[in-house]
């Protein structure tokens, strides 16, 4: 094929590792210089005596302190904005906090342009072109999935339909009237949309031109994605972003759907053990730590995202050299330690999902039993597949064995009836630690 390439920015997307690191070092030094002009980083960095000259190689980033969400809150609203840039700020996005101040991220026009570029690059990666009709069925306003995708899709040159969230019949009318080919929505909304089509008696596969769905912002499993794809007869790609790092376009799946390429010309990516804060080995789960490399108004360095993921080891078949991270399945706050072993609920979830006899709802309880810590895992029986005790017992033993292989500790597995555990709505407490503190 001539003329058309699969890359939006071939030179950047296929840079060698050496080139990427060289660019990162250069941009990191610029970022430190810029950040030190903000009240927050000026105070932090002068305290420990670090500046741009601290950095000579990419690993030197470990000499810099982490930035946390609490830091952003404590500096509310403009403590991280670079001196002299306040007048250049053209937009802010604020995320609500459940306690105390919300966080605020300020963008200059340059920052917004770079953000739109990343989103355009991501959209192009999954096959969106200027001939496409892009319907953004995501909340607008402060939620970065609205304006973030809006400007990215415009930059790419697609016809954008800023439908915003909700009103399913109207969404469906737009999809049909405007021949929408690409839709962005949170995963749970795609299910509602699909139900809408069914209720209206419209065959979404035959009577629409939908070919790509972009889903993100809400944790979802690969199984859920496959179901969405089967329902719509379209490809669904996972989008990752967070408002502190601008929003969508931080990382995105390519058409191979095996992890999300994270744009390393714009971010330095680290994955660390949430306890020791040391880097984990490639392929191991840890907390994602990101540094912005192209933000003028409000650079953020070594931001602890609290998102748990891992690097996907090896090269991607698409030819892009920017590393891939696994879909985010949990938060580092959920990690717990039993008998000196770090355990993440997502490890347990992964094992439980292998058993069709049990549901995905579970409850982990850690308690002192004598001088030992004991971990109890209650799982809901999905279907009463037998009335034979020995079969139920065998299932319990099999779950226990697989869990032990994964977390290296033998848990006590307890089968419970369907719906007897608290329902998960994304925020449910799945770990209950009853140990004496």
């Amino acid at each position, binding site marked *: 094929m001539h003329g058309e390439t699969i890359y939006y920015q071939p030179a950047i997307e296929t840079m060698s590792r050496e080139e990427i690191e060289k660019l990162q070092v250069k941009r990191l030094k610029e970022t430190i210089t810029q950040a030190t002009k903000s009240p927050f980083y000026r105070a932090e960095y002068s305290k420990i005596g670090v500046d741009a000259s601290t950095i000579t190689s990419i690993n030197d980033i470990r000499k810099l302190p982490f930035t946390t969400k609490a830091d952003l809150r404590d500096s509310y609203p403009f403590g991280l904005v670079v001196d002299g840039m306040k007048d250049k700020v053209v937009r802010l996005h604020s995320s609500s906090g459940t306690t105390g101040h919300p966080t605020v991220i300020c963008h200059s026009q340059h920052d917004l342009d770079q953000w739109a570029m990343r989103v355009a690059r991501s959209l192009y990666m999954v096959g969106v072109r200027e001939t496409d009709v892009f319907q953004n069925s995501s909340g607008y306003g402060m939620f970065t999935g609205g304006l973030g995708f809006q400007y990215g899709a415009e930059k790419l040159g697609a016809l954008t339909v800023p439908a915003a969230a909700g009103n399913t019949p109207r969404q469906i009318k737009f999809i049909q009237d405007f021949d929408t080919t690409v839709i962005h929505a949170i995963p749970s909304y795609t299910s509602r949309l699909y139900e809408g089509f069914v209720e209206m008696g419209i065959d979404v596969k035959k009577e629409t031109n939908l070919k790509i769905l972009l889903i993100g912002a809400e944790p979802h499993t690969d199984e859920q994605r496959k179901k969405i794809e089967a329902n719509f007869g379209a490809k669904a790609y996972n989008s990752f972003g967070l408002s502190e790092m601008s929003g969508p376009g931080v990382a995105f799946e390519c058409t191979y759907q095996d992890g999300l390429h994270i744009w390393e010309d714009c971010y330095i990516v680290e994955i660390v053990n949430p306890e020791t804060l040391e880097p984990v080995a490639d392929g191991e789960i840890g907390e994602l730590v990101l540094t912005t490399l192209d933000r003028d108004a409000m650079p953020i360095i070594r931001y602890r995202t609290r998102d748990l993921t891992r690097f996907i080891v090896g090269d991607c078949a698409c030819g892009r050299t920017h590393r891939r991270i696994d879909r985010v399945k949990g938060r580092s706050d959920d990690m717990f330690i039993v008998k000196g072993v770090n355990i993440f609920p997502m490890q347990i979830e992964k094992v439980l999902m292998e058993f069709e006899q049990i549901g995905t709802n579970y409850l982990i309880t850690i308690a002192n039993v004598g001088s030992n810590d004991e971990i109890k895992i209650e799982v809901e029986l999905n279907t*009463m597949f037998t009335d034979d005790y020995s079969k139920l017992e065998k299932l319990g033993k099999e779950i226990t064995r697989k869990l032990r292989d994964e977390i290296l500790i033998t848990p006590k597995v307890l089968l419970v*009836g*369907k719906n007897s555990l608290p329902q998960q709505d994304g925020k449910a407490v799945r770990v209950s630690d009853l140990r004496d503190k």
Partner: protein
Amino acid sequence: MKTVKQLSLFLENKFGRLNEILEVLSGANVSIIASSVADTTEYGILRLITSDTDTVAQIFRDANVNVFISEVVAVSCKADAVSFAAQLKNFANEGVVIEYMYSFSREQETVMILKVNDIKAAERAVEKYNITLMSEQQLIKL
């Protein structure tokens, strides 16, 4: 061969759970013909023969209780110990393994509810020894 439908419910081992589960049926016009609870330290299984298996199963499913339906054999015999033992021996003679059983008596008659491992072998025993089986309809009339 006449068989009877049995409902098995998963029962968490916590105080009051049995009452809780049976309360689900309070609004329904059904009767419980026979029941048995077996438990381990961790959970139990409640087994029920009711006057309307499908309705009861649906009520439990709607109440999010795990339900399993299986076929069991209801054998009628005289209530004395000799008859009781003789019937079980008849099945054993044909190589039938009884996985579990429970029974109830009414006047001089006992009804044994048997879960057998091999329904064909059980059928042979029934024919050979002229064993009296009960259908659901017959059980309701008791």
